[in-house]
């Protein structure tokens, strides 16, 4: 990761007037030496590694000196071999489920729930914006659903569709639908009136207005919304799996608790952190790709 960043040496800023500027001699405005710029670039990942190394070192030290019980807070020297040996699994015989399989189950639920929830949120937002009557009828309901904690839907979900994937997907859906619908309505409302007026006067119909103006204009907010709903879905599905949907990563952790296997709990926590962080970064990269016209901050 660091090597990749170092290879991306900062390029000299080209003025945006294009061809004209190339005839001018290069300006010597920046007196900052290159090593310092490289250090600034590397600064974040380096401090990231250092901070974690320090914490893990203290942890290891504390366990070795007996400051706390290594049965409750297993140090990295126990957790990592446990993880690498593939012992992080629950169930017996044919029901035996490993860590990777648990992650896969959970991710699939999130993916399906996210796609359904976001499509429904944007679809309902479209109706609310197009039809004034629906704005008066649907928006209050959506706004009331939004603040309900997703785990609260678990009993309902299990009663309606039973334990397993459908219940988890239902919980994810309920976790994101309300708040994302409100956010989508706000995002479309915030599209400057002038854009609509210009598009209309240039001859755009309603479908074209949505496709070429409203969706792209709201895309930056919508993409931020997708990232936020990913987090909400991630939290919701884990809580759901702990609260009765008996499979997936959340279930793995709860089994660790019930079998008093804290290494299993620790591995589950690490998996949540690593997978969540990685997917958020992926979404961020996707966001920058899709919204190509905005300068990254």
């Amino acid at each position: 990761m660091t090597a990749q960043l170092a290879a991306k040496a900062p390029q000299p800023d080209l003025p945006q007037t294009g061809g004209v500027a190339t005839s001018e001699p290069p300006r010597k405005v920046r007196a900052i030496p290159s090593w310092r710029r490289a250090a600034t670039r590397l600064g974040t990942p380096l401090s990231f590694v250092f901070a974690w190394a320090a914490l893990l070192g203290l942890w290891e030290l504390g366990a070795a000196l007996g400051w706390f019980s290594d049965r409750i807070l297993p140090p990295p020297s126990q957790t990592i071999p446990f993880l690498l040996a593939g012992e992080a699994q629950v169930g017996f015989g044919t029901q035996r489920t490993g860590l990777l399989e648990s992650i896969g189950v959970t991710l699939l639920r999130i993916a399906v729930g996210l796609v359904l929830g976001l499509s429904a949120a944007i679809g309902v937002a479209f109706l609310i914006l197009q039809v004034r009557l629906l704005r008066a009828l649907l928006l209050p309901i959506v706004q009331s659903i939004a603040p309900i904690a997703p785990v609260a839907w678990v009993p309902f979900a299990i009663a309606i569709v039973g334990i397993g994937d459908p219940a988890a997907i239902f919980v994810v859906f309920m976790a994101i639908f309300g708040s994302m619908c409100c956010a989508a309505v706000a995002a479309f409302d915030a599209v400057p009136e002038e854009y609509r007026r210009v598009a209309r006067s240039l001859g755009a119909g309603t479908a074209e207005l949505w496709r070429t103006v409203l969706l792209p204009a709201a895309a930056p907010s919508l993409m931020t919304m997708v990232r936020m709903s990913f987090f909400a879905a991630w939290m919701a599905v884990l809580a759901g799996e702990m609260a009765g949907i008996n499979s997936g990563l959340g279930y793995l952790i709860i089994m660790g608790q019930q079998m008093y296997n804290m290494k299993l709990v620790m591995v589950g926590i690490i998996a949540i952190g690593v997978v969540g962080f990685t997917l958020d970064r992926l979404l961020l990269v996707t966001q920058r790709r899709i919204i190509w016209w905005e300068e990254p901050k």
Partner: protein
Amino acid sequence: MTVRLTEPGEMVSDATARTVATRDAAIEFGKVTKHFGDTTAIEDVSLRVPAGEFTVLIGPSGCGKSTLLALAAGLEAPSEGFVTAHGHEVTGASRDTALIFQQHNLFPWMTTEANVAYGLRSRGMARREALKRARELLARVGLSDFSTKPPTALSGGMRQRVALVRAFATEPKLLLMDEPFGALDHQTRKIMQAYLLSTWRDSGATVVMVTHDLDEALMLADRLVLFTGMPGRIAETLDITTPRPRSRDDPGLRKLGARLERHLAAAAEAAELTDSERSRMARF
């Protein structure tokens, strides 16, 4: 240089008596009043804009000039009176009418050429053909190098130029401009005015432009409509027959400019200051 002065309403007196609008008028306002809630933006405005002419609306801020444009564009409906375009009542946004605002409002998620092609695509032109046409139009204004760049890569003047090209690309009969060059610096503004004049003359379109800049109004207008504020009313309509290109040093224009300046200053003062404040300031 001849300046024909008309009393407010005189020029339109015969037109407003009829319910059917005159044929050669690109836009006609008949006794139009527009309320927004409790406030009256414009009151009893009658105005005929002849086809092919360059009409400039000038007056203090908040005198309803922009409202008048919104009515002409069909974005707002009058509270009283009627608005017709080319003899037909305006009921909604028309494809024959293009809008230009102070902000360029280019779509940042499209390349410059896609922006120019937007109106052509909306009219059913094939994508490839529309983009080709857009590139030709951009080449004419010296922006070939920027056709595949996003609008963010352009300077302020270039963006407004692209906005003009986009508006003219669909060959509108009527171009409504709301302080189009208000955000540009003085030099760029002069270049854009010259560019607008040449494009307008080639297109044969009718232009109605709102501006705060008296100098701009005198350089561009065939007809100048002077407003007073709160609620907006037409104070005076002037025909400026000085041939183009006009010089800022033309004695007739300067004399007219000085008179309009006094009118605008008085109108602005009336809007901004109370009587007691005015009498205090009169001592200086």
